[in-house]
């Protein structure tokens, strides 16, 4: 068996290797230089690379993002990290008014290779200000790439790819995935954006799952297999660019579609994916596509309501069955 590494450790290893590969790489973020190091993803880097390359930042999220952007203009490759995506919202001016359109408005003459790591909390009462899952917001903006890695292997490869390529990247991490391990090669490697992964081949129903719904979708597929239902689980891995071809090819093969997105129901990635498939092969589908998402509601704190709010295996199984009914 190849080396197993957790999602959190894979992020740490990618950052460490990027910093070793190039002195242009540095890390900014609140508490990145502490022992706890953003849930272990930056722990020890300051000892290895020094406080000039691993810097705590004031609670000024907008300025932190803009600082990374300006530094990128001088040839550096900043990685910034937010403990929760909710804090990152303070930086929307930097992202939406400047970063996303920098290449465009310079007519391709100027680039800002900035990587923004951001964590979506889930569970233990994170509540409405520690759990927002807003990958679709960023995917809506032209000029950004958005990664939604579901496995440790992808987390490492997509993070290295984000750091060392030229279009700014929003790197959305599922906090619930942090402990999950995967085969993670030791050498620095890349996972290119825009390449979906067929996590489990199948012929009856295409189940496209994003981020922390990937393991849940795979378990749902395993359960359904026992009933003789053969589900193909596809993980887009990145939302921008979106590997529309692989998604459509799978749906064309199975003629049935479920999209599981750990985000709100309306106006999100699930809608975009279904629209893409329907635009390409709507009349070839044998049943109506179904999406499995969070309700259009903010996240409740109470341990009694959290399980009701979040998507779990039975929700996915029910959606798959609905396409077969």
């Amino acid at each position: 068996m190849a080396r197993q590494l957790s999602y959190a450790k894979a992020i740490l290893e990618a950052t460490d290797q990027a910093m070793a590969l190039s002195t242009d790489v540095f890390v900014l973020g609140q508490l990145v230089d502490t022992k706890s190091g953003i849930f272990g993803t930056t722990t020890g880097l300051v000892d290895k690379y020094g406080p000039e390359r691993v810097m705590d930042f004031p609670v000024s999220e907008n300025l932190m993002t803009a600082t990374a952007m300006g530094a990128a203009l001088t040839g550096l490759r900043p990685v910034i990290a937010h403990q929760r995506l909710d804090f990152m919202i303070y930086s929307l001016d930097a992202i939406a008014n400047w970063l996303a359109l920098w290449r465009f408005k310079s007519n391709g003459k100027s680039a800002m290779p900035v990587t923004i790591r951001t964590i979506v909390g889930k569970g233990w009462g994170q509540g409405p200000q520690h759990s927002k899952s807003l990958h679709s917001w960023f995917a809506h903006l032209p000029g950004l790439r958005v990664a939604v890695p579901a496995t440790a292997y992808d987390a490492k490869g997509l993070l290295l790819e984000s750091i060392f390529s030229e279009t700014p990247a929003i790197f959305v991490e599922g906090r619930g995935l942090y402990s999950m391990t995967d085969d993670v090669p030791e050498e620095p490697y890349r996972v290119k954006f825009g390449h979906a992964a067929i996590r489990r081949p199948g012929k009856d129903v295409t189940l496209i799952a994003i981020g922390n719904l990937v393991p849940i979708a795979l378990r749902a597929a395993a359960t359904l297999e026992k009933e003789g239902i053969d589900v193909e689980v596809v993980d887009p891995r990145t939302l921008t660019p979106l590997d529309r071809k692989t998604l459509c090819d799978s749906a064309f093969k199975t003629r049935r579609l479920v999209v599981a997105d750990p985000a709100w129901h309306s106006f999100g990635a699930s809608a975009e994916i279904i629209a893409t498939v329907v635009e390409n092969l709507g009349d070839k589908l044998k049943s109506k596509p179904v999406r499995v998402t969070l309700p259009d509601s903010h996240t409740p704190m109470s341990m009694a309501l959290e399980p009701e709010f979040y998507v779990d295996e039975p929700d996915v199984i029910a959606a798959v069955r609905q396409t077969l009914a």
Partner: protein
Amino acid sequence: MELSHKTLSKSGPYRELSLDNLPADVALSLYRQMLRLRRTEEALLAEYHPAEEMRCPIHFCIGQEAIPAALSQLVKPEDYMFSHHRSHGYYFSKGAPLRELFAEIYGRETGANAGKAGSQDISHSESHFYSGAILAGAVSIAVGAAFGFRYRKTNQIAISGFGEGATDEGAFWEAMNYTGKQKLPILFVIENNRYATFSDQLKRQDTDNIVERVRPFGVRATKIFGNDAALAYRTLQAEIARLRAGDGPALVEAYTYRWNSHVGPEDDGANNYRTAEEMKYWKENCPIVLFDEKLRAARMLDDKAKAAIEAEISAEIAGNFKFAKESPFPKDTDWRRMNYEDASPVADRLLGTAARGQFDQDQAEAKLGPY
């Protein structure tokens, strides 16, 4: 003389401009650059609407020539400059090619950004000049450039030019807090023209004392009469020298005035936001007239010399218009390529590929603790 909008327009003729200790070549360059900027803006203003060929918002900077002229003598090619929407003066001061500015606002392929940015978003990366319309956003990015210079241990500085309106925004104060603490090599230049569009600084802020408010953050701050180009030059020269010696950050607030509307050539006086007395004060204390008088008194300028400068500028402007008008419009409609860079030479060089294994789906989610 008290520098406050509360009293300034009642203070009469400005008599403090002095050419002492200013090398003759610098003095003449300051004058020439102010005149060049004034005439360029006047020409653009005159052409703006008649032909409707410049179809983007332009925030003219007539009346605010002293600071750009002073900066033009002090910044180095390797320095980075970031401007707000009233960008022409800063573009000009960074030495970026004016014909590319003309072509840009004419929406032409040969514009600095091939017609994608226009006046308020123009950049010229070869000259390390950048701008944008969302006020303090550009200030924050300038902080990052200064961060980059310190990280790389270079002798470059970042210059951030903006108006007092940007100091209403939180991003400005985040920049004060961070650069003051980090001692970054950045020069903040505020051209305080009193009004954010039509809104008086004294309506938006308790009083016009920005320099006093930034000092406790660790930002050295100086307030000057911004229509005195000699004073602007001396002040900025001293601050830039200190920044290059590692003694940053610094802020210079220059009190000045825009003669025209907030945007475009139309009269926005119907909004009744500024007085005739105030306009008169600032026109009588025009930065070019003030400087002109001193140069003539020092026998460094006469009608003939001025006519020669005017003729040269006039020819340059005519050439810029010709270049813009004769240039083709952009045809590229590859929207995806405009917004995303596909090439990744650094990743290609540093990263290989590796086989992906089979993910074990039977793992519980991370158990979150209380925090």
